[in-house]
């Protein structure tokens, strides 16, 4: 197991937010965590990233327990995580401070190309669209060659059309880079479109209700029967009707 959560429990003050969460993530897997608001999915991710300490349980990555933030596992936030005072180049190269200049420039160029932002190297984030900024953040995360990527509702602030495009982009980049990805979302459709497996969390206190394997090959047809089946399965787990 690349990432292993064992009996993770978390409490804020008197409030239990996570209870006995145990799950393993394989190397190279794309795992989605979905659940209603407040189910602790972001908290779980923060614990895995080393930004929070659980009151019980451990997270190990490659067997080593997580004790703090580390460059081998990078968080991708929403597009506002991009540093506004740096250009695209500056942002992508941010974590590469210990490389010689030439090497750093080469790497930055490589990832600019990977996320499709050629021509915008010297642009500042305020000149970019939401989707472009998100791509800068992904490139910045990948440039340091981490083992694991954590994405916490990264597309939340984007409009729905951009969101669809960014999902395809993310999958393309993921397949090229072959990283282990933990992706938190409240959007059930998004999880079925992206993930190899979907972890469905219950409402607070967060527990794992079910783990659903998405056995559809990419590119996934959003009208296929299997897609709709799996999607409805998850809807049902969360207790949502699918009629408006």
């Amino acid at each position, binding site marked *: 197991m690349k990432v292993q959560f064992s009996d993770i429990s978390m409490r804020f003050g008197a409030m239990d937010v996570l209870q006995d969460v145990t799950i393993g993530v394989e190397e190279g897997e794309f795992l989605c965590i979905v659940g209603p608001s407040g189910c602790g999915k972001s908290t779980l991710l923060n614990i895995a*990233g080393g*930004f929070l300490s659980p009151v019980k349980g451990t997270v190990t990555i490659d067997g080593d327990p997580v004790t*703090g*933030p*580390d*460059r081998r596992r*990078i*968080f991708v*936030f929403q597009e*506002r*995580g991009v*540093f*506004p*005072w*740096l250009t695209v180049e500056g942002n992508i190269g*941010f*974590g590469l*401070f210990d490389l010689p200049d030439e090497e750093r420039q080469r790497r930055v160029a490589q990832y600019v190309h990977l996320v499709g932002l050629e021509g915008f190297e010297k642009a*500042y*984030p*305020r000149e970019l669209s939401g989707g472009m900024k998100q791509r800068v953040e992904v490139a910045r995360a990948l440039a*340091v060659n981490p083992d694991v990527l954590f994405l916490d509702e990264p597309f939340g602030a984007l409009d729905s059309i951009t969101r669809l495009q960014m999902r395809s982009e993310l999958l393309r980049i993921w397949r090229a880079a072959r990283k282990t990805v933990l992706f938190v979302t409240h959007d059930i459709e998004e999880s079925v479109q992206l993930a190899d497996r979907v972890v469905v969390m219950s409402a607070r206190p967060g527990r794992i209700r079910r783990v659903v394997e998405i056995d559809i090959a990419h590119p996934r047809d959003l009208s296929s029967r299997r897609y709709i089946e799996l999607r409805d399965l998850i809807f049902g787990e969360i207790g949502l009707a699918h009629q408006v």
Partner: protein
Amino acid sequence: MSRSRLLPLTGILVAVAAWQLGVSTHPSSLIPGPIAVARGIGELAARGLLVKYVVASLFRVTWGYLTALIVAVPLGLALGMRRRAEAAINPVLQVLRPISPLAWIPIAILWFGVGDLSAIFLIFLASLLPLTVATMNAVHNIDPIHLAAARNFGIPLRARITRVLVPAILPQLIVAMRIALGVAWLVVVAAEMIAVNSGLGFLIVDARNAGNRYDLVVAGMVLIGAIGIVLDLLMRRIERLDSVRWGYAAE
């Protein structure tokens, strides 16, 4: 000349014309008109006082302001990052804040005598508090995501301060610096009226005392206003730099 330049110019011209009118229709009042003031400025230049006084005032502002900046920014950063330190010192800052820098004049004279050092000390005091508080507040307003990202990438503490903290607070800090510079300029003039023997503030007091030269008094005021604007415009230039611009709402 574009319309947007025309209007401000018109406004100024109207104000000056009204001034001249007011003076012409009330010859008995001692207030000089714009022409007398312009002549006054010329006289100061001829006597070599113009440059001397302007330089003296600017010199004091620069030293007092820069010293305050060098102390305030690290102090503000430290306080902003340590909630306890800030909670401890905040009430003291709140009590010091309403005290006019000029109220420190007796103490300044006691410690530094009458002269440049007193004035510089007063400007230092006047700038220190606002700059420290502004830095502290700017630190509070940093998006926590940026700090988390810096830790994530394994950036050591020192580098986090220089590569993330300082760039992130720059927009707010520069605005506060501009305002503090304006205050410093006000204070230097006031300080010079009381505590030193040169400079634009002194000019105003001296011109009146040594012969009711109100044309020189108003000339001094015009110069003060003009330099104040120039300083303000210079700071606004800095606000337009790319590494600072990002922090202001859509232009």
